[in-house]
């Protein structure tokens, strides 16, 4: 069965420093993977998606993620954090093989320090 593990529940960085949010997945098929961001009392906004094309995926707001099949990882990075990046981030896996439901990780809360 597919699953996703976000390795850190909380991450704190200083403004202007790099961001790394870690995600590992388990999938029976070639997966589709997504990162979403959720600001307080809001819905989820798509940051980026991997669907078996290029392994390095660029998203919005300077975020990118690299799909590593050998490590079953899909970590999210950003070179320089901004105060507005403070939010909850969710890694999502969708199996191939006709499964349509999203499986969410438990989320990583990113705190950006001035």
């Amino acid at each position, binding site marked *: 069965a597919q699953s996703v593990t976000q390795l850190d529940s909380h991450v704190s960085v200083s403004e202007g420093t790099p961001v790394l949010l870690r995600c590992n997945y388990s999938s029976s098929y070639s997966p*589709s993977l997504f990162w979403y961001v959720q600001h307080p*009392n809001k*819905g989820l906004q*798509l940051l980026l998606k991997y669907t078996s094309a290029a392994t390095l995926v660029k998203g919005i707001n300077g975020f990118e993620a690299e799909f590593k099949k050998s490590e079953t990882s899909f970590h999210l990075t950003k070179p320089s954090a901004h105060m507005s990046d403070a939010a909850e981030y969710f890694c999502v896996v969708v199996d191939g093989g006709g499964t349509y439901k*999203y499986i969410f990780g438990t989320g990583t809360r990113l705190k950006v320090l001035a």
Partner: protein
Amino acid sequence: DAGVTQSPTHLIKTRGQQVTLRCSPKSGHDTVSWYQQALGQGPQFIFQYYEEEERQRGNFPDRFSGHQFPNYSSELNVNALLLGDSALYLCASSLSHENQPQHFGDGTRLSIL
């Protein structure tokens, strides 16, 4: 171009009551999914509707039911409400292919007293 819209934004009910939540998908989308997000948790998949049929269902009891209308809008119904049903309910729309990203509304905050 309007995104996914949900109504109401907040709702307070008591145990045993029934509730209906509504969702209008993003223009051009034909598939609607519903999720339950408890406080401090990631969203949990309830079910997905396509062509007015429930296409896939998560691990939720039959008290949770839904409907999709010909204009692709959708309703989520929950009967016999329990305290544990208190959560943010999110609707997401997409095109029907499994690799298409889902676009989320801002949710309905349901509180059970």
